[in-house]
């Protein structure tokens, strides 16, 4: 939660610099301040919230320690086959979870980079602090601005149309917290509209005009009034833009409505296809906090292919594949990189609830035609002497290295300006 300041609204005293034109944030009238991204490069961020279990996603099936630590949850080599019976092994050390057959196919095509052993120094096992750390790229967790919000402030101010949006969720992800940019989140397109009394359609313009007049006021930026007012203004303008655009989308791809990530990615496709200026899209799916029932356990026996984790990874895999097909159909697949993250991995050792407690390292998936497929980073040692007091392994790749690689190699940014330091290139982009 950003720091708040005292309110100055009393009797209008908070109105400052009346008459100064509001920055046209993401709808843009000013010119971009810096080079901006290569004109048509797009980034889709997929957050898997709750702490995805990296060790049952990219599965080290030959690691005897993995099996020893997870008598109930570990997958053995014969179990690593998808629903069609095809192997999900991707190397002589690793396989993908059997629910991820579609991502296995994309991997085989060279379009998936998996960075393993991802974490950061002094890992925090709180969901909320660790998420903040990832959102802000600040390991204290106290920074206010998100890494993509900082990027938007540097590179997207003044861009026309809708350069960035979070789709499908009720919350604006902290990654998008910015100083100047107001990045919209859109739960669904139907509701994303300014609605007035339908009995008097002739009065609608009066309503909009009066609303816009009050929402065009300028307030001190670090007050609640300042935040609310500029968000109100942009929401109604954005609604009009989005309503005009997205109705133009058609596709042969059918996104199943029971899969929440597919629903969000359909919205992403609608935006990307109809609003070519869209650069950053953010979606998320929750439910990964599998302290219990990570796998189903009828009669006390683990049934690894039917538990909650299996369902979620299947949704992830299916949705990503559909989106990739859709982008290919629309000629956009060469211009899109998808980046998946989660606030931490889970503990190598299982608990008694058919689940796992909070861990440190996890894996990140980078997906898309521009990605150089393969496995990056090192498999963290699960040897007892290499685990910390809580039983968690050490990271080998700092997540900020992944961010820096994307900023420098894909978004044409100076990663140092966004991240405050220089990080090595992980190598998954040419």
């Amino acid at each position: 939660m950003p720091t708040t300041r005292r309110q100055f609204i009393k009797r209008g005293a908070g109105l400052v610099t009346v008459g100064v034109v509001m920055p046209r944030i993401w709808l843009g009238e000013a010119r971009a301040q810096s080079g901006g991204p290569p004109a048509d490069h797009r980034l889709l961020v997929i957050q898997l919230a709750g702490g995805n279990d990296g060790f049952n996603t990219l599965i080290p099936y030959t690691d005897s320690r993995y099996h020893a630590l997870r008598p109930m949850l570990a997958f053995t080599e014969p179990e690593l086959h998808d629903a069609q019976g095809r192997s999900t092994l991707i190397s002589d050390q690793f396989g993908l979870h059997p629910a991820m057959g579609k991502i296995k196919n994309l991997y085989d095509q060279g379009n998936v980079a998996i960075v393993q052993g991802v974490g950061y120094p002094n890992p925090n096992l709180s969901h909320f602090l660790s998420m903040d750390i990832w959102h802000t790229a600040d390991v204290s967790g106290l920074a206010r601005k998100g890494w993509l919000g900082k990027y938007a402030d540097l590179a997207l101010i003044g861009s026309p149309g809708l350069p960035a949006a979070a789709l499908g969720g009720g919350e604006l992800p902290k990654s998008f917290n910015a100083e100047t940019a107001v990045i919209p989140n859109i739960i669904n397109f139907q509701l994303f509209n300014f609605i007035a009394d339908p009995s008097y359609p002739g009065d609608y313009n009066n309503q909009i005009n009066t609303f816009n007049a009050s929402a065009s006021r300028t307030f001190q930026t670090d007050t609640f009034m300042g935040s609310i007012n500029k968000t109100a203004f942009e929401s109604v303008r954005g609604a009009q833009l989005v309503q005009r655009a997205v109705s133009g989308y058609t596709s042969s791809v059918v996104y199943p409505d029971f899969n929440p990530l597919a629903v969000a990615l359909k919205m992403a496709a609608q935006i990307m296809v109809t609003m070519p200026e869209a650069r950053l899209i953010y979606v998320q799916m929750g439910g990964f906090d599998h302290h219990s029932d990570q796998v189903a356990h009828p009669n006390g026996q683990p049934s690894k292919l039917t538990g909650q984790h299996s369902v979620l990874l299947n949704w992830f895999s299916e949705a990503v594949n559909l989106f990739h097909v859709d982008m290919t159909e629309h000629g956009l697949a060469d211009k899109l990189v998808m980046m998946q993250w989660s606030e931490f991995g889970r503990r190598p050792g299982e608990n008694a609830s058919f689940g796992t407690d909070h861990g440190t390292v996890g894996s990140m998936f980078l997906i898309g035609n521009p990605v150089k497929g393969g496995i990056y980073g090192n498999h963290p040692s699960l040897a007892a002497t290499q685990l910390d007091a809580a039983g968690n392994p050490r990271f080998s790749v700092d997540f900020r290295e992944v961010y820096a690689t994307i900023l420098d190699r894909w978004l044409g940014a100076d990663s140092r300006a966004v991240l405050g330091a220089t990080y090595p290139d992980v190598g998954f982009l040419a």
Partner: protein
Amino acid sequence: MAILTYEEAAHLLRRMGFAGSPSQIEELSKERGSAVDSLLNYNQIDNSAMQSLLDRSFDFSNPDEFPKFNRAELQRWWFTRMVYTSRPFEEKMTLFWHNHFATAASKVPEIFMFIQNQTLRTHALDRFDSLLAAVAKDPAMLIWLDGITSVRGRPNENWARELQELFTMGIQDAVSGATSYTEFDVQEIARCFTGWKFFGPSRTDPNRFNYQFFINPGEFDSTAKTVYGQTANFSGDDIIGIISARRATARFLVKKFFEFFVYPLDSTAADKATIEKFADVYIASNHSIREVLRAIFVSDEFFGERSRFGLVKSPVELIVGSIRMLGARYNPGAIGRGDRGDQVSYILGGFSALLGQELFNPADVSGWKLNLGWINTSLLLNRFTYAAFQIIGRTRDLNAPGVWVANDQLRAYTKANAKKTVQKFLTLLGPVETDGKTVRQLRDYLQTDDRGNLVGFTNDDPTIDKKVRGLVHLIMCLSEFQLN
């Protein structure tokens, strides 16, 4: 001490309750302490009118009877309470604790969410230790944070972590910044709560809500644990007592009370002093929630300028408050109404979810993100849509379920000219304090026809039905209106 002004009384009622009508505000025209006590000592307030409405509108006697007992019905039930209660602070505190001990129907069956709601209401102003113990032993929390599967030898850390991080101390002490607990403390405390279970009513028990807590001795880890540097065979109850007595807990709770009821606290020296002032009350009163809150509500911090409209309305405050301020009618509808797919009666719960606050189902264990957490482009547009919904309802049928405002109700506040009418509705809906230019724009709106010409204002029925309703919508869309 002086009698509260109208604005101060309205402020108090917004924060301790869900705002109110002019007459409800005027009832609080008393000295600060008396006004606060009149809301705080709610057990002395007759609430039989609400109770008889609930009795007519709901049948929760059998939780297995799905059409009468389900999540939509629970939401309809709680909104009915909040709109009609004569004890608004009771509901506000229950809502506070629901957010504090955020537990969700996404994982926990509705029957346990309902039982937890009773637990929160019963212990809302109790000693904090008693509330915490009751919540910890309640089936909802034992399911939500996996206590029932946490056993000796392989404890589950979910509860042990959130107990400290979210329910009591926070990761860091709110004043000193010191780390409140270590990962080792999480693991050791997890062991203290092993074997915690509950059992349900027997087949013949007429009380289908009769769930009882117990500890399975065979699953409890009875060896020594080291917690915060002290070693003993601690039980879960021991830990609850130890944590409740820690200064970090007092500070954390004060901070959360302020964020919800007063204003968000910064990390300045002055704000830390404020935390300490009320943390002292917590310690001195032997952890009495009631005494801490009373001290806060009668304080100069609460009545000062920083506090006035220093919070963002939550969706529940927005919805219930708008109905109460405007004197809109809310008819909850009949038993089982929530499950009929009949959006009219269930719609308050549904709208609240669209605005980001689905009762009985917060997104995660950290609860709803308050204040600017309620504000983003989608949630703001949904607020405006709720405002439209509230003024669109016009039915004159007293038996029709839903929310509606009759023209007669609006006429009572409509004056002979546009200027006074705008002022009256701004006062009614807050009082909303805004600038002169905005007031003039609202006045012009009232007098503008469909072609955009200024044609003047008449307080006749067609104008009320069109433009006064439109005015209410526009006031509810003002950024000022989103503040509490």
